[in-house]
């Protein structure tokens, strides 16, 4: 497939770029570049887009909602030609990426020695882009397996040391590029049988990097796998460019390369999509259920078209098991559409896999809004898959925040295109992800019970909720970081932290980093809230700033905030803290918590120095401040390090 095939084609991108260049205001040019970054583009057009955005990116207007991130690339080959593609793909994902490229081939010096430019840049993300030609393992071809293992282990050990340094010095999330073969195999299919053969060595190095990365909390950039089958036949690496300019990645592939890097940056910042919204007729089955009936639609084995639709359903179901929320948005009679899920024997997707099911005759834009509202997620968390180009076009114009992939004519290729688009890139996979689908289904049951209940308090009591609070440790770190980076609505300060930064906060002896889980009679809701409290230079030593307070919207309206505050006050008081200071930093998305602190009995106070405009500050005494009632049992052992010393 063509690279970026899932992005729509612009009528005349060149002319649009020339016109946009004449816009006087840098912020408006940036906004235009963000829009045009969503179209299919080649290397040259991507370079033009980058220049269009450049001036505006130096100080992006707040209303564009771009999330800043500093990315440093430490490479053993030329990467300068890849930077525009990374920045432009970032714009497409709502990221304002500042990219620093360390001097060519000096990655060891940058991390082990002194690199003042890198230190001044203070990277949050470090991409270690190494290649097979760098520090090659040079062993005789007949070396025994043990010698190969030893050499591979030594190289991995060296890289792990560099990763540790990157974390220690910069608190940065490390992304390690897996090695790409630099030369053809020597032995053909027999290659893997010869431990010291070049491709064998590379496979072992990459396997070692994968295992070490998982252990060390490092992310991987897997160019060979992710780029396979995309772009021109020459593929990812072009020997001509390598000899000409030491470019490992061909400039032709820079747009896709940039997208792969920006996906990871987006995942680290929680900008990945969360929900796959599916059309039904000719997307999940062949034919029109309303006309053809359950017997008439094409789905299931025994017929190539039916098999292709079944494969599409299976892919969606697998995404569901990965933690992607599934929804349906279809122009159909609701009863007829739901009956297909219940009665068709070959459906791979079950009705219970679908967290929001909107089949009706109203416009799809309205239905997508309804789905986002029902699931308590933003429109920018949705991916909408529809075989009908006209519907896709309408949604792109009406709801630009929703991702709407272009699709090929043949449904057999839908999973490939959807997978290649990388909407659901992630920086972690936790047990909570694997059970999320069930959790959303349980939420529908709770909702049904609430609708039957005559009084809210009685309903909440009947849920038999237990809130478990634990200091964030290694078990909670990945999920807590994920929540910190993807929670937009119930988030008082929207501070984003990498896993390394979170770990540093959790380990600070004078701070509190709490992970909160909620269980009820319907099951475990998982880790649903994170609270970080710490001393602050603007406060007295016996006061804590609530650096971060966020909660999953799945548990809204269940008085979890009240229970959480009680836990927080108890911990703080126990550590000799007399008052908590809460901040509300307004964003385009967190209006729902504007009244959070006053509602919990905090009193307003004067703004703190050096805070963004519009920040509001509140305070509560830890002693005696328990004026709220809630129906939640607490499981809080006050197990943080400080309290055990008392």
């Amino acid at each position, binding site marked *: 497939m063509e690279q970026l095939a899932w992005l729509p084609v612009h009528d005349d991108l*060149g002319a649009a770029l*020339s016109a946009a*260049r004449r816009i006087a205001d840098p912020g408006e040019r940036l906004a235009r570049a963000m829009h045009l970054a969503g179209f299919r583009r*080649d*290397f*040259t*057009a991507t*370079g*033009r887009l980058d*220049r269009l955005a450049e001036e505006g990116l130096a100080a992006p207007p707040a209303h564009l909602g771009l999330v800043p991130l500093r990315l440093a690339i430490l490479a053993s080959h030329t990467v*300068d*030609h890849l930077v525009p593609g990374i920045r432009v793909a970032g714009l497409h994902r709502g990221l304002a990426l500042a990219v620093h490229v360390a001097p060519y081939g000096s990655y060891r010096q940058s991390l082990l020695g002194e690199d003042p430019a890198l230190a001044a840049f203070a990277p949050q993300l470090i991409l270690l882009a190494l290649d097979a030609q760098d520090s090659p393992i040079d062993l005789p071809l007949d070396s025994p397996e043990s010698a190969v293992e030893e050499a591979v282990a030594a190289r991995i050990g060296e890289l792990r040391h560099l990763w540790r340094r990157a974390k220690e010095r910069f608190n940065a999330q490390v992304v390690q590029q897996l090695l790409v073969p630099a030369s053809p195999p020597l032995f053909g299919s027999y290659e893997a049988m010869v431990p010291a053969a070049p491709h064998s060595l590379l496979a072992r190095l990459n396997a070692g990097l994968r295992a070490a990365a998982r252990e060390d909390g490092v992310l991987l950039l897997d160019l060979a796998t992710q780029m396979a089958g995309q772009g021109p036949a020459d593929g990812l690496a072009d020997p*001509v*460019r390598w*000899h*000409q*300019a030491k*470019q490992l990645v061909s*400039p*032709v592939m820079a747009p896709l390369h940039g997208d792969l890097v920006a996906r990871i940056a987006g995942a680290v910042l929680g900008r990945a999509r969360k929900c796959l919204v599916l059309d039904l007729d000719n997307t999940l089955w062949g034919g029109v259920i309303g006309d053809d009936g359950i017997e008439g639609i094409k789905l299931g084995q025994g017929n190539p078209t039916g098999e292709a639709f079944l494969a599409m359903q299976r892919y969606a179901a697998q995404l569901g098991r990965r933690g992607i929320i599934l929804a349906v948005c279809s122009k159909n009679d609701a009863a007829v559409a739901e009956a297909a899920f219940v009665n068709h024997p070959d459906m791979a997707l079950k009705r219970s896999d679908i967290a929001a099911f909107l089949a009706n005759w109203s416009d799809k834009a309205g239905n997508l809004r309804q789905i986002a509202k029902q699931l308590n997620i933003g429109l920018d968390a949705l991916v909408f898959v529809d075989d009908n180009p006209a519907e896709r076009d309408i949604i792109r114009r009406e709801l630009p925040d929703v991702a709407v992939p272009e699709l090929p004519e043949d449904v057999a290729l839908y999973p490939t295109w959807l997978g290649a688009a990388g909407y659901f890139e992630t920086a972690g996979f936790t047990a909570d992800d694997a059970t999320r689908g069930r959790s959303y289904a349980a939420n529908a049951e709770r909702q049904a019970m609430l609708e039957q209940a005559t009084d809210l308090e009685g309903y909440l009591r009947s849920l038999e909720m237990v809130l478990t609070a634990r200091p964030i440790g290694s078990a909670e770190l990945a999920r807590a970081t994920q929540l910190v980076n993807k929670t937009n609505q119930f988030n008082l300060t929207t501070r984003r932290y990498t896993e390394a930064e979170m770990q540093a906060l959790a380990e600070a002896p004078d701070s509190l980093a709490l992970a909160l889980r909620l269980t009820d009679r319907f099951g475990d809701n998982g880790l649903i809230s994170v609270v970080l409290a710490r001393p602050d230079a603007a406060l007295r030593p016996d006061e804590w700033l609530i650096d971060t307070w966020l909660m999953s919207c799945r548990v809204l309206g269940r008085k979890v905030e009240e229970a959480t505050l009680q836990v927080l006050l108890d911990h703080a008081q126990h550590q000799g803290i007399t008052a908590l200071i809460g901040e509300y930093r307004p964003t385009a998305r967190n209006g729902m918590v504007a009244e959070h602190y006053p509602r919990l009995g905090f009193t307003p106070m004067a703004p703190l120095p050096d805070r963004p405009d519009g920040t509001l500050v509140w305070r509560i005494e830890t002693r005696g401040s328990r004026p709220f009632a809630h129906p939640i049992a607490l499981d809080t052992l006050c197990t943080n390090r400080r309290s055990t010393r008392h």
Partner: protein
Amino acid sequence: MHEQEIYAALTEVFRDVFDDDDITISAATTAEDIPGWDSQAHVNLVVAAETRFGIRFRTAELEALHNVGDFVQLIGTKRKGT
């Protein structure tokens, strides 16, 4: 493809790569004449020309691309008969 057509298409390539709609080129135009035509931009030019004309320059040919005339001549040879 006539030389004139090559010049017209190559002018567009230069304008796109350097993002300057006022660029005009002639056979004698070299890196000295166009601000920003450094070694990285040179690779960008090569890649954009290859994409635009559907050709590939050989490694040895890359070393002989010194001015616009060299580009036009080589493109003309590779596009002969089209």
